């Protein structure tokens, strides 16, 4: 078969698959109505072969990048021969390949000359998915049913016929009408994908398509194996903790990782990680797998095509019943948020073998959702506040951490809201949204800066839901190779009567009065390398820009700066640095 491969045509297929998934993505960006989709871009579009193997995808945030294939392969097995031209299948269930209840996917089989040849899929985070609390995050959940409606694979179209009965049953269990619109948008995206694949098949025929798809998988696999070969063989441990299960004061859950590199194969073994929790601090299998792949991709050549081949040399050992692979009927909505701590364990494991590629710790995500009524319009609103939640990433060899980038799951793909739009969309009055001085972990390459957000709440019947991590001292973004930790997260409510309520990392806060001042700190990333080696002019620049204090410049960086003239005191600096460095 190899001699039939036209390498040029393979490049063409790869380029076209990518551009079709981009077209699908653009369709969703324009047609969805929920801000988490059209503004925060929390969705993924992809194309798969008949067996459900990924051909290409367009992800706006990495955590969804590899979260579609497990569900699709389940669907392929589940329906078997009963997959018909004109079917549309909907799914979210975390116990059959889903990664998060609120991430609802639509799958469309693509037929050519009467044969199933490929699949198009769109998956996006929905504004609501039923369950006990609006908006999908319920820190009080103990079982999946308190979190969400479980949608196991079900056809909403069968052989081209709309199944109104099924549709109505699903949406009878979801609060907001816009979710229905957004699922329609996902179906639109799949149709765009189907059209693109069919045009390619018209032009090149099915056998060329199949041969070249196999070839593309093979070359991608080869690229990944080549990358792995460069990593020395061995077993590399890394560990990390998730803090507070939402129930037990002082609880922490251990991620126990052993990365095993053997020639051109790699495995991520999570045996020995803590058992699943009673609450929602659990991950489904797909969420953990996604965390592994997105972090690993940051450590290898980022230009490798994203298809099934990328996963072949990678094995994930993740025993059932651990909080990284929770068993039915566990609550798991916090699963995507375990990506941060999991990435910490992976970075630590690789730190001694790929020191120039790993980053220090990223700020862990502290989510805070506000729901209530806007008195200006009498309409209810939900705000996931991605404006306030983006801290800094970890420093790395030759680059400071990225300021205000946000959680590693999204890696800068999620955007902060525009200030003026924020005040128009929600009953909030912004007081401050700026970088936070001394938030970045000091280092030769310092961490990315965290931010401070303050606004006054003008809404009525307001409820706040905290779901996150990074509020404990221990949960700061870690430093590497002499670099220091980033700052902590904090969400704080100052009520009109002057009392102050500091939110726990997982908690529902009800009846927040109007005119409460909300203050949120998203911390900085960890530093990389000895801060005493950071060039003096870089430190001076940060001090001049009020991002690093005089005190930190002296104590952490060994750079003494005269406050009046904002110039370096060379003599004193040499004393400090000479002594330490």
């Amino acid at each position, binding site marked *: 078969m190899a001699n039939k491969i036209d390498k040029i045509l393979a490049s063409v297929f790869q*380029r076209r698959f990518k551009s079709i998934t981009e*077209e699908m993505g653009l369709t969703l960006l324009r047609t969805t109505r929920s801000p988490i989709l059209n503004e925060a871009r929390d969705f993924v579009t992809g194309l798969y072969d008949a067996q459900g193997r990924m051909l290409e995808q367009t992800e706006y945030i990495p955590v969804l990048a590899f979260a579609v294939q497990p569900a699709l392969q389940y669907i392929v097995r589940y329906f078997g021969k009963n997959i018909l031209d004109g079917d549309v299948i909907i799914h979210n269930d975390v116990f059959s390949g889903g990664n998060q209840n609120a991430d609802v996917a639509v799958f469309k089989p693509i037929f050519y000359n009467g044969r199933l040849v490929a699949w198009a899929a769109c998956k996006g985070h929905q504004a609501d998915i039923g369950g006990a609390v609006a908006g999908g995050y319920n820190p009080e959940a103990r079982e999946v049913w308190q979190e969400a409606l479980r949608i196991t694979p079900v056809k909403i179209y069968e052989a081209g016929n709309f199944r109104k009965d099924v549709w109505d049953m699903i949406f009878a269990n979801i609060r907001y009408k816009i979710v229905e619109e957004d699922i329609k948008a996902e179906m639109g995206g799949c149709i765009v994908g189907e059209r693109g694949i069919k045009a390619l098949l018209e032009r090149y025929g099915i056998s060329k398509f199949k041969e070249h798809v196999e070839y593309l998988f093979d070359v991608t696999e080869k690229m990944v194996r080549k990358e792995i070969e460069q990593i020395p063989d061995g077993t590399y441990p890394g560990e990390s903790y998730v803090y507070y299960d939402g129930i037990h004061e002082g609880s922490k859950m251990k991620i126990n990782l052993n990365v095993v590199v053997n020639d051109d194969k790699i495995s991520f073994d999570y045996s020995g990680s803590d058992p699943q929790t009673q609450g929602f601090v659990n991950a489904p299998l797909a969420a953990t797998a996604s965390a592994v792949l997105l972090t690993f991709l940051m450590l290898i050549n980022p230009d490798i095509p994203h298809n099934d081949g990328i996963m072949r040399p990678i094995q994930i050992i993740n025993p059932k019943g651990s909080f990284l692979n929770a068993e039915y009927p566990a609550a798991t909505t916090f699963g995507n948020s375990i990506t941060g701590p999991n990435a910490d364990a992976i970075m630590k494991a690789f730190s001694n073998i790929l020191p120039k590629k790993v*980053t220090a710790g990223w700020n862990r995500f502290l989510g805070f959702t506000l729901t209530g009524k806007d008195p200006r319009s009498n309409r209810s609103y939900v705000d996931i506040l991605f404006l306030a939640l983006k801290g800094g990433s970890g420093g790395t060899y030759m680059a400071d951490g990225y300021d205000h980038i946000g959680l590693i799951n999204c890696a800068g793909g999620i955007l902060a809201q525009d200030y003026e739009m924020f005040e128009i969309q929600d009953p909030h009055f912004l007081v401050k949204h700026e970088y936070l001085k001394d938030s970045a972990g000091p280092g030769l390459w310092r961490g990315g800066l965290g931010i401070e957000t303050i606004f006054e709440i003008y809404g009525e019947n307001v409820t706040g839901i905290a779901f996150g991590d990074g509020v404990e001292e221990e949960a700061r973004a870690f430093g590497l190779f002499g670099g220091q930790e980033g700052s902590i997260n904090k969400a704080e409510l100052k009520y009109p009567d002057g009392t102050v309520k500091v939110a726990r990392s997982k908690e529902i806060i009800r009846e927040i009065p109007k005119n409460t001042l909300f203050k949120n700190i998203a911390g900085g990333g960890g530093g990389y390398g000895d801060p005493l080696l950071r060039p003096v002019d870089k430190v001076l620049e940060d001090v001049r820009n009020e991002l690093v204090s005089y005190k930190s410049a002296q104590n952490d960086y060994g750079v003494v700066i005269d406050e009046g003239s904002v110039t370096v005191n060379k003599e004193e600096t040499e004393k400090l640095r000479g002594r330490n460095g």
Partner: protein
Amino acid sequence: MIFKIGIDVGGTFTDFLLMDNEGNSNIFKVLSSPEDPSIAVMTGLNQMADKIGISLASFFDKIEIIVHGTTVTTNAVLTGNVAKTGLFTTKGFRDALQMRRGIREELYNNKYLPPEPIVPRHLRLPVIERVDYAGNIVTEINENDIINGIQLFMDQDIEAVAVCFMHSYANDSHERKAKEIIRKYMPRAYLSVSSSVLPQIRFYDRVSTTVLNAAVGPILKKYLSKLTTRLSENGFSGIFLIMQSNGGVTTPDIVTGLAASTLLSGPAAAPMAGMAYAGLHGQKSFITVDMGGTSFDAALIKDAKPIVTMDGKVDRMALALPMMDIKTIGAGGGSIAWIDEGGLLRMGPKSSGARPGPVCYGLGGKEPCCSDADLILGYLDPDFFAAGKIKLNKAVAEKAIQNLVAEPLNMSLIEAAYGMYHIMNVNMASAIREISVQRGFDPRDFLLVCGGGAGPIHAAMISLELDISKILIPKESSILCAAGMLLSDLKHDFVRSFHTQFPLNDNKKQYFSSLITDLKSAGDTILSNEHISEEKRKFQFSLDLRYVGQYHEVCVPVEIDDIMAMKFEKMAKGFHAEHNRLYGYDLKDEKTIMELVNIRITALGITDKPGFRKEIFAGADVSQALKGQRPVFIPSKMAFAPINIYDGDKMNHGNHVMGPAIIEQKNTTIFVPSMFEIECDQYGSFMMTKINHIA
């Protein structure tokens, strides 16, 4: 004889189009002089005088108009050589400029750094003041913050000052106050105030645009004053106009006030050129492509209206002025071939530029480029590149492709060269798909207008990828933008944000109509400053509308009479229809509430365009232009075959050629594949058409 001149300063070449009042046109190309772009401009003008055979003084005396496109501002931003700029902004929000809403464009690349902010944090000064979303003053402005800041700015030798306060589109009184004070103490500083530059909602977009405007203001001012001085010293007393990114032209005085309107103006004239050339064939919907040495620009025009975007980016920073929606990718004659880790062939975006250029230039280039493949496949004649001025070295190009592409891929030299050519075409077709398919347009409904020196070799094969059946190659295709400049109108865009329910409640109507009057008079004032008489002024209104809860608006063009008469229902109908066209659905029947976000006006001053000279019909016979034959690679046969080579400069109106054939002109080469025919039109342009298969 009177002359009109279009001058397009590019990265490699400065292009000139000289037209006389009889419709004769002449193309000139001079190497650009990046250190002082006006040097190349003067060189070109000198060459023109020589060519006509008159003295420079009497030539300048006969120039009626010069339209000039410049990349000085774009280059200043890309190289970081902008004016030293300071910013006054609302206390609590001084980092918005640098944060760029926290985006990292490369998700998996942890070494990817954000761009350096144009104004460092210590020069972004907070001012105590606050206006809310409805325009109410919440906190009065503290003037001392401005006065103290001015002192700091003067100590720091600040050349330009930007001012951007929260919600200033709703109430600009604080910005006006700040402006007054800065004017008083820093009379020579370039001032950029957000409520004048872009009085439009969305703080980050506004502060970024306002700061970019400040940072390039002094640069443009200096450049234009130097150039206009040189021109007038040489006796030029005609009209001098500057190209803007919105596809219109304006006077140096006005453009200096909104210097950011020249950012990304480089390719903006191509759609204007397309409009004229396609118009001669009665075509109003077309796609222009311009393939040069390093980049490929594509734009779509529907019903004689170019697509406009407010989503521009310069060096990853927002530039929210309305501008031509042009997709630029790194694909050109200099695009370098490389093999990725998985063994797949890729082309670009890295380019060998003008120096060293492709291997075949013999200037030291080692990496095989698109032009090297074009040469090996026989599309380029080694002895007739740039009319023979540059000799191409085929042997070294062959060696480079053999060693660096063919061998690693285990292919023959020819397979490798064709692979390079083909992948270039696929990449360029993808860029066209982005501006057509992804915007809801079917490329098959459009004519392809092809420009740029390297374009016509690839045009037919690109059109096959997209199923486009007609390609127009204008006579001036190699300098499409310079031509477009002479064919553009004066154009100015104004915007006012007004966030309210739509259709408007009665108590909002008075404010609405005052905004309309404001916008209209702003347009009248600027056009009268440009000495445009009233009958040559044209105004186009549009509204940015959305369904409640949506984040993105749809820009809906509205009739001037409808807006004056406040026919909101009719305008709403237009919104539903446009929403449906773009996104495939509307919410008219659901009776979803609509919102107005912005009101826009475009003020046009219609210019006198040069006429093209028509040639008499000379019949289909093209034998007078036949130069001979040479072997050329025929993609449909995947083999070389000897085909006819024609001298395009000797072809006349009506001359007809069946593919496969090559048509060579001084500045460009057209490849006509087997399934195409081509005809020279009455203006000296070429129309290439796909022949429908008879078999």
